């Protein structure tokens, strides 16, 4: 069973004059442990697609299954539970909570899943060390660099051992060097944990790291000419 299977996804925003068809029939499959990159020009619907696949938003039409569970059938509560247990997110703007230290941020998914704070902290320390942040545990997000923030975000996304990692331009907001380090961490962890990855990017170099690439334009998949 593939970790993620999406079929003929449509997503329409707004109505009337402001109606936007962000996705117009995209299908994709990510097998267990596979790394799929989504590339395409700005506004082509990458983020929208990732949101749908991660259960953050609902499709206007089409079906999505994560680990064989059809998202369309889930109510908000169940969908939240699925995000909490099966999916990890890495956002372009890091999205660490400013009032939590890096360690606490990393432990957050565990805390939400009801793991005891003590165990959460221990596992967060472990996770932080794996992304090279063992020395930054007690710092608040405002006190560390963008690259470090994003590595913490990666650690957070994987702390609860999700089946699917969704990363939306994880290096988009970083300089090349920091971006490279984040990518390295991501690839290492992908290899080690066997998590399936769905990643959106502009960057051909980053897309090159993936097992497979999905090209998009104007809300539809385009064949890999060029």
């Amino acid at each position, binding site marked *: 069973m593939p970790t993620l299977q999406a079929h003929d996804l449509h997503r329409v925003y707004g109505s009337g004059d402001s109606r936007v068809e962000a996705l117009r029939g995209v299908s994709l499959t990510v097998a267990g442990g596979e790394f799929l990159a989504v590339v395409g020009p700005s506004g082509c619907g990458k983020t929208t697609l990732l949101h749908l696949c991660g259960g953050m938003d609902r499709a206007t039409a089409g079906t999505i299954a994560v680990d064989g569970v059809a998202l369309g059938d889930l109510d908000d509560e169940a969908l939240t539970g699925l995000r909490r247990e099966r999916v990890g997110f890495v956002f372009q703007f890091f*999205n660490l909570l400013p009032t939590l230290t890096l360690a606490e941020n990393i432990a957050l998914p565990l805390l939400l899943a009801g793991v005891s704070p003590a165990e959460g902290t221990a596992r967060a320390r472990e996770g932080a060390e794996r992304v090279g942040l063992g020395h930054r545990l007690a710092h608040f997000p405002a006190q560390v660099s963008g690259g470090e923030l994003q590595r913490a975000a990666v650690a957070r996304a994987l702390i609860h051992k999700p089946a699917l990692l969704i990363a939306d331009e994880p290096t988009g907001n970083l300089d090349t060097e920091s971006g490279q380090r984040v990518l390295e961490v991501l690839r290492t962890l992908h290899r080690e944990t066997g998590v399936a990855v769905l990643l959106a990017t502009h960057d051909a170099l980053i897309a090159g790291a993936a097992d497979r690439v999905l090209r998009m334009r104007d809300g539809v998949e385009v064949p890999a000419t060029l």
Partner: protein
Amino acid sequence: MTLFRQFIVRALLRDRPRTVVTVVGLTLGVAVVVAIRLANASSIRGFETALDVVAGKTSLEIVGAGVGVPETQLRDLGWLRDYGRVSPVIDRIARVRAPDGTEHPVRVLGVDVLRDRPFREYRLLRFARDGRDPRPQELLALLLDPTSVVLTQRFAGRHAIELDTPVQLIIGDRVHGAVVRGLLLDEGPARVVDGQLALMDIATAQLLFDRLGWLDRVEIQLFDAETIDDAEGAIATRLPDGLRVQRPAQRGRQVERMLAAFHFNLTALSYIALVVGLFLVYNTVAVSVITRRREIGTLRALGATRRLVRRLFLGEAALLAMVGAGLGLPAGWLLAQAAVRLTSTTVNVLYITSAATVPALGAGDLLLACAVAIPLALAGAAIPSAEAAGVTPIAAVRDVDRFVRDRGVPRRSAALAMLLFGAGWWLSTREAVGGLPVFGLGAALLVVFGAAALVPALLDLLRRVRLPWRWFGLEGLLAHANLSASVSRLAVSVAALVVSLAMLAAMAIMVGSFRDTVGYWVGQTLQGDLFVATADRAPLGPAVTISAATERRLAAHPAVAALDRFSHVDLSYGPDRDLIILGAGDFEVRLEHGGLLLKTPTDGRAAMRRAVGADAVVVSESFAIKHDVAVADRIELDTPQGARPFQVVAVYYDYSSDRGLVVMDRTTFARHYGAQRPTGLTLYLAPDADPEAVREELLAGAGPDHRLFIRTNAALRAEVLRIFDATFAITYALEAIAIFVAIIGVAATLVTLTLERRRELAMLRQLGAGRGQIRRMVVIEAAMLGMLSQGVGLPVGVVLSLILIYVVNVQSFGWTIQFHLPLGFLAQSTLLIAVTTALAGLYPARIATRLTETEGTSEG
């Protein structure tokens, strides 16, 4: 819980200004509610304890109509002894002059020692030393001497009064030399009234209090307390006309009812402070939800349920509330001390005098504080928490849904405001409930909420208005643009400010109108040249009389042209036995020398002239409204001969008491109730006399055994207005606090907005904006908000004041207040608000400039 600490508590600590403001606001709200409750409780309790003490083991009591029980009737009441022991009592207030010259009120109980012995315990210091209670004969021997008085050990100790030394008792205008023959031990009853109790022989008390031939009541201690219902019924049927049997507690209930309207309004006033607290909580939670949308979205994306998000923010409110309650409790207790002083000057509380002390705080009060603060905070946080729960995970990445949401808000807010105003209008036309202006205050509350609801619509309007702000130059333009971009963030704190400003305006208009009305009334009514009273304050209360000697002496002064004697007694009236005031005056003198402001009929003088000597009365407006009485109606008043009909010939304006007054001519009064010494005198002087000089002469002629208070017309007018102002001082203080907190609330919101805009501000600086310009911009933002709030608050305040004047006040006190706009005050306050809000903008302005100093644009 861990998440709560990390996500909520840390954020609260981080955004300290707003947190502090909210906690202060809640603390204040709780403090005021607790204070008013404690104060109300203490005055009622003061009365109840006094009642307990005096009632002793009394099960029933016989009371007369207004003037008391004629002693002659006691002889015909011999059959009462079939039911129990019987003891006649005189129960009055006097003042004791301590050796250091200070004067203190005491409750004086005149009893027949031999009969009273089983009713009350008299444990005297003198005998306790021998380890026993006094025998009745010994007590009798102690008290029989007309100069004997027994005080309490506690009172004597406090004022350095020794056993067997002389003290002076001041009763009415007489100064009576007495000797302290006994001290009641500091235990039991003597302790509860804080020791302000004196005992004397009943005959002595009758003499000293001008009560010869009268008893204040006759107490009965039933042989079998179980049969009280039967006994009460049986005695009631056998009593002659003019006498009634009741339980001692009934007096307490009468007083409670008398105070109900006053307490109700105070309580309602205290809830104003809570409304401000409510808005502050709403504000704090709403601002944190709005500014933390992205964080909430992240939490949601990571798997936090809607329920968890909602609980986090409700928890924030509850935490603030608990801190507020914890701090508000002691603050409330302190406030209560002040409020008790206020209550005792405002109400003519007969028996309370100074026995009212603020009860100590207990666990129950903590419970109350939490019971008030926490639901309030949760209510305030309900809407923003629901909004937080509605944040989608997408918000972690995009802001779009917010702007989509915003569009309908102004229109909906305007519609809601109209709905609330409409409902308020409807409520304001409802009748009072049990003498309390429940719907009137409800209407006021709806108008307040309506004003708050109107704010988003008005801010939206501000967004569209462009022109006038150009006056402030570039900074003004930027300020306007900034505010326009943050309508939803600002709406709540501006609403809170609008609400408090509206209430200030309403209060100012109401009090100003009231003051004007009272001033006019005083001017019209106080026509005499000199006013003679027996105490410096509280002209109403248990009648303390002016002696015949003094009256003769005053009348004999060559400059005194006429003398109007006024006396009053308390009377139970109507089916509910409300305590009203029955007054008697010299209608002839009043007619000749002026001084009654009539409401109806227009030709009141003719009506009054007809009332001289007839069974006719004039009634105060509050009496007419409360008891639904009009000119030409007949009312039944209790007299010693039973109920008698009297015709109402006029309704007059009166603001001296909200209990309702019924006044008859002295001759009529004497015919029904017997001759009573006057309790106050008004002197009309010859045209060429100098009131001040005559006053000096009259006072100088008083001699050592008489003491009088004489005020000139001007002094009395000033005194009336002084008391008036003192009464409303706490009202203003409350309002000022509320506004202060609200202004800080706006400042705190601006701080948040500034912090949020730091990158923008830094960019402005890089584009070449000077530090001064940034500062000016933020200050202008603050001032604009202040002016906008005042602009809404003023008209809403006028509407509120109309409700207060024409609905609430009429329903609770039955007073006509002439509406009057205190333009000067309102103009001043507007200016003050502009300046204070601008000043409040200085803090966020400083933050703005400091931020741009230390941080570049790079920060993420």
